[in-house]
C-alpha cells in the first residue's frame, strides 16, 4: 500500500498565531559548548523588497558534529541542553537574527565529512512549499570538498556562505527568494 504525502500549503500571513509559541532565536543554554556565533540577515523578494511575513526554522548539529536525534549513532559527544532547533520570525523589515554555536562537521554521502552547516527551512506568505537551503561558514577548509556545495554551480555557492562582519562571531546571511542573486534552494 502506498499513499502520497499530503500536499503542502502556504503558512499564509497569520502564522504567528499558531507558531510563535516555539519561537527560539537563542540556541545557547547551560552546558552548551562551542564557538558562539550570531547570524543576522534579511528575507527579500524578487523586487528586493523586505518580506515581513516570513519565518525560518533551523536544524543543526552540536559543536561536536552530533545531532540530537536517535538516527545519529556517532560516538561523539551529545550533551543535554542543545537541541539544535530554532524558529525565527522576521521583523517588519524582513530582518532576523539568531544566536547559536557553530556546528561541527557531520558525515556526508561520499564517506567524507560535510563542511559545518545549518539546514534552513523558509516559510512565508506566497510560498506554497517551504524552501530548503543551508548556511555554510566563511574560510572553512572543508567547504571545498563538501558534497552538497559541490552540487551547486560555482558562481551561486556564495549565496550559501555566511559573511564575516566587523564584529567577532557575528555573521551575515540573507535569503533572496527570487532574482539574479537568488539564494540556492534545494529539492530536498
Amino acid at each position, binding site marked *: 500500500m502506498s499513499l502520497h*504525502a499530503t500536499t503542502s500549503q*502556504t503558512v499564509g500571513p*497569520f502564522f504567528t498565531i499558531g507558531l510563535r509559541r516555539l519561537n527560539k532565536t537563542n540556541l545557547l543554554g547551560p552546558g552548551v559548548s562551542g564557538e558562539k556565533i550570531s547570524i543576522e540577515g534579511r528575507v527579500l523578494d524578487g523586487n528586493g523588497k523586505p518580506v515581513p511575513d516570513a519565518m525560518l526554522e533551523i536544524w543543526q548539529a552540536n559543536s561536536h558534529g552530533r545531532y540530537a*536525534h536517535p*538516527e545519529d549513532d556517532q560516538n561523539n559527544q551529545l550533551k543535554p541542553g542543545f537541541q539544535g*532547533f530554532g524558529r525565527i520570525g522576521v521583523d517588519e523589515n524582513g530582518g532576523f537574527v539568531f544566536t547559536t554555536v557553530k556546528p561541527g562537521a557531520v558525515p556526508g554521502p561520499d564517506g567524507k565529512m560535510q563542511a559545518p552547516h545549518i539546514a534552513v527551512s523558509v516559510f512565508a506568505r506566497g510560498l*506554497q512549499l517551504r524552501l530548503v537551503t543551508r548556511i555554510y561558514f566563511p574560510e572553512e577548509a572543508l567547504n571545498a570538498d563538501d558534497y552538497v556545495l559541490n*552540487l551547486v554551480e560555482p558562481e551561486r555557492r556564495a549565496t550559501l556562505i555566511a559573511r564575516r562582519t566587523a564584529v567577532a562571531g557575528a555573521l551575515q546571511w540573507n535569503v533572496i527568494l*527570487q532574482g539574479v542573486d537568488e539564494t540556492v534552494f534545494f529539492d530536498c
Partner: protein
Amino acid sequence: MSNIRGYRRPAPETQPQHLHPPYVSSITRAPSKPLVHMPHTLTEVTGPLFGIEAVDVKACDLTRQHSGEPLGERIIVSGRVLDEDARPIPHTLIEVWQANAAGRYLHKVDQHDAPLDPNFTGCGHTLTDDEGRYRFVTIRPGAYPWRNHHNAWRPAHIHFSVFGPAFATRLVTQMYFPGDALLHFDPIFNCTADEQARNGLISVFDWANTIPDQALGFRFDIILNGREATPMEK
C-alpha cells in the same frame, strides 16, 4: 554511517508548483531558478523531536482557553499522521491555527471587518499518540475575504504544521471542509495539479467522532514522506 536511508520525493504533480500566478503573492516570492537536487544526508534524516515537556496537554481544546465559550459551531477534528506506507507516526508535534467563526484572525494584519471573539484565540497544539492519532476540539472557522483578486474569498480552513521524524518530513498545510463551494475558486487550494492530491486536503465528515448534542466530527489524516526502501550507496 555512510549509508543513509533517505525519504521518498513527492510523486509528480502531488505538490504545488512554487510559482502559481493565480496566487498573486507567489509571483515575487517563488524561486525563479531550478531547485538543486540533493541526496538526503544525516542532516536531513534527523530533525527536531518534541516530547511531552514541550506540550500543554490542554492546548488541544481551542474552546477552553478563555473564561467563556467561543461563538460558532463546535467541532472535533481528528485523524492520524501516517507515512506513505501507512505506518503511524507516533509522538510528533502538530500545531494548528485558524480564524474564528466570523472569519477573523486574532492578528494585527487582519483588517477584515468581522468581529473578534474574546473567547477564541485560534491556536492549539498536540502530540500524536502511540498510533499516530490526534484530536482537537475547536469551532468551525468562517470564510473570509482577501485581496488576491476581485471578490476573493478563502474557503474555511485550519492551518496544520507537522514535524514528523526528520527535517525531510516537515510539512505545513491547510485542512478544508467537505462541500465548501469556495474551494473551486480558491487559488491556494487549486495550486496542486493532481486532483486526488488536492482532495486529500478536504476533511471527511466523521459520524463516529461526532458527539451527540455537542459537536460535529471531521476526519483529516496527514501523510508524511515515506522512507526509501534501501540505503543510498556512496
